[in-house]
């Protein structure tokens, strides 16, 4: 059998690669031009609808607000931005929000994954219903949380009244102390199932033999976790960290529809700020400049993703 395969694939050495099929005319293959044919619709599609607007956005950030597209290249948006203390507050809010969401989601995800990494009856049922927060659209979640957190009729306030020492008229989304933690809680609640489920898969992929060997060698549960489980799932955790980073960086509806970025600018992240600049103040060029900062941050995140993905792939093959 192998002889037949080899005979059918007589390419110049180096052209044949494992797991991929080289360009090179072969028998009745659809020709060397197949990749180039397939790539055209995708390139055109992405180019028109995503790349072109991105490039245009980058260019717009260098145009002055007054002159618009006809104006010449200028840094005025950037100088204004970097000099604006509100901008730096927005950056700070964004970074803290993102860090908090990433940490909480990963920790919660790991905790829940470890909880579920146990065969018990009804496990798939639990897995299923635990995914519901993630499957729900943002708007109903916002509506329900607004009701639950209502200062007058909210069930959260009823819970608060059960705790001694707490009152029961908290305005969770409009209070200057509570708004920021509230959006973090909301975002983590909404997103954690995804991270829990992926971490669970990673936990289940840890080879049993290794764990058994460790147990036989006398390693306790904590030691087993540290030396066997953790190294196995670390690549997945890193991947999830980057995904969570991007997820929280681009959060918009959950924040905008609950706190609106307020009170004041207390919960205004980059996304909210860009939206406000563009649709409230109509400062399109300024909004584009702020968007560039966001782009910069997500490039860093995505670069991390690529780096980690490469490492995972390399360690697999």
């Amino acid at each position, binding site marked *: 059998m192998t002889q037949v395969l080899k005979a059918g694939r007589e390419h110049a050495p180096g052209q044949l690669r494992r797991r991929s099929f080289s360009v090179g005319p072969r028998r009745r293959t659809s020709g060397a031009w197949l990749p180039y044919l397939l790539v055209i619709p995708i390139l055109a*599609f*992405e180019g028109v609808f995503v790349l072109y607007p991105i490039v245009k956005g980058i260019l717009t950030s260098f145009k002055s607000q007054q002159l618009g597209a006809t104006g010449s290249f200028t840094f005025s948006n950037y100088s204004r931005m970097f000099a604006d203390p509100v901008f730096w507050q927005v950056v700070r809010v964004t970074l803290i929000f993102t860090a908090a969401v990433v940490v909480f989601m990963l920790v919660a995800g790991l905790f829940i994954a470890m909880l579920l990494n146990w065969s018990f009856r009804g496990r798939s049922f639990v897995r299923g219903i635990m995914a519901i927060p993630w499957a729900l659209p943002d708007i109903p979640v916002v509506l329900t949380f*607004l009701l639950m957190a209502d200062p007058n009729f909210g069930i959260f306030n009823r819970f608060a009244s059960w705790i001694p020492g707490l009152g029961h008229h908290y305005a969770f989304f409009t209070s200057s102390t509570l708004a920021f933690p509230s959006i973090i809680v909301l975002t983590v609640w909404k997103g954690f199932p995804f991270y829990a489920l992926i971490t669970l898969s990673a936990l289940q992929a840890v080879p049993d033999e290794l764990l058994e060997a460790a147990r036989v060698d006398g390693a306790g549960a904590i030691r087993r976790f540290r030396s066997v489980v953790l190294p196995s799932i670390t690549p997945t955790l890193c991947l999830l960290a980057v995904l969570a980073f991007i997820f929280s960086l681009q959060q918009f509806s959950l924040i905008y529809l609950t706190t609106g970025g307020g009170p004041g600018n207390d919960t205004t992240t980059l996304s909210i700020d860009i939206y406000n600049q563009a649709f409230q103040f109509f400062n399109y060029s300024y909004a584009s400049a702020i968007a560039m900062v966001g782009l910069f941050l997500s490039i860093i995140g995505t670069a991390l993703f690529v780096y980690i993905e490469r490492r995972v792939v390399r360690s697999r093959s």
Partner: protein
Amino acid sequence: MAVLTKPAAAVPAAAPRRRRSRRYVAGSVVRVVVIVAVCVVALFPVYWMILSTFQPESKTLSFPPPLILKGFNTGAITQLFQDQPIASWLAHSVLVALITVVITLVLASFGAYLLGRLQWHGKLIFGLLLLFTQMMPGAMIIVPELQFYRSMGWTNNLPMLAVLYAAFAVPLGSWILKSSFDNVPDSVLDAGLVDGLTRLGLLRRLLLPLSRAGLVAVAVVAFFLSWNDYLFASALITNRAQYTAGLGIATFISQQDVPIFELQAAGVVFSLLPVIFYMCVQRYVVRGLTAGAVKG
């Protein structure tokens, strides 16, 4: 071809039965309690949403609001459909989601093939380009996107909105599907080549049918991206007659005159489709998403 069967593996000796020690039982009980607690936390808002739909407004808007249903408002959902054009909103959302999913599946199949199995010049650049399109999260790209759509006269155009969603979903979908494609054993594809399949045939007849989990994952990603979006829909669709469900329901937030139970009913109705859809396919989704990412 003679098929060699491996000698059946010797039946392993029964694993030594662990004594169900008290510690184990206690540990299990704690575990169950914590699992239940987590489920409660995860589901409580959903419970509240459903509760508030069927509870008369007077009870919901009282303090303290009852934890268990008090009174039953059977007409909640019918009233919702009477008062608000939610049926057409939902229809719009379904239409947009369907178009998004179809376009994404087709293009992501090409993309995944191009990213993985096919070897060609420019593959690296193509991969980087796709990556770059994912780097601009929503709010960053909304302004130029809106200006572009305005200049082309594509605002208030639901199919073009779907096209935009697909443009966002295709790169991610390609990466997901690529992992699935990579998991198809080389031997299967070699056999296909030997049987005379073209490379396109390989895609159609072997890779795609064998990557069902990945295809489902891509469909789910595309569907959710489309169904859940608020930002782009709110910017590109301003004509009330064309609102998608997300847009329409979001307008309730600022209105004072919509009864609470109608609000929550809208939420329930809007959530039904994605939740049911997800429940049906959840087996495939995690498998499809982690095909390449998780070791083993």
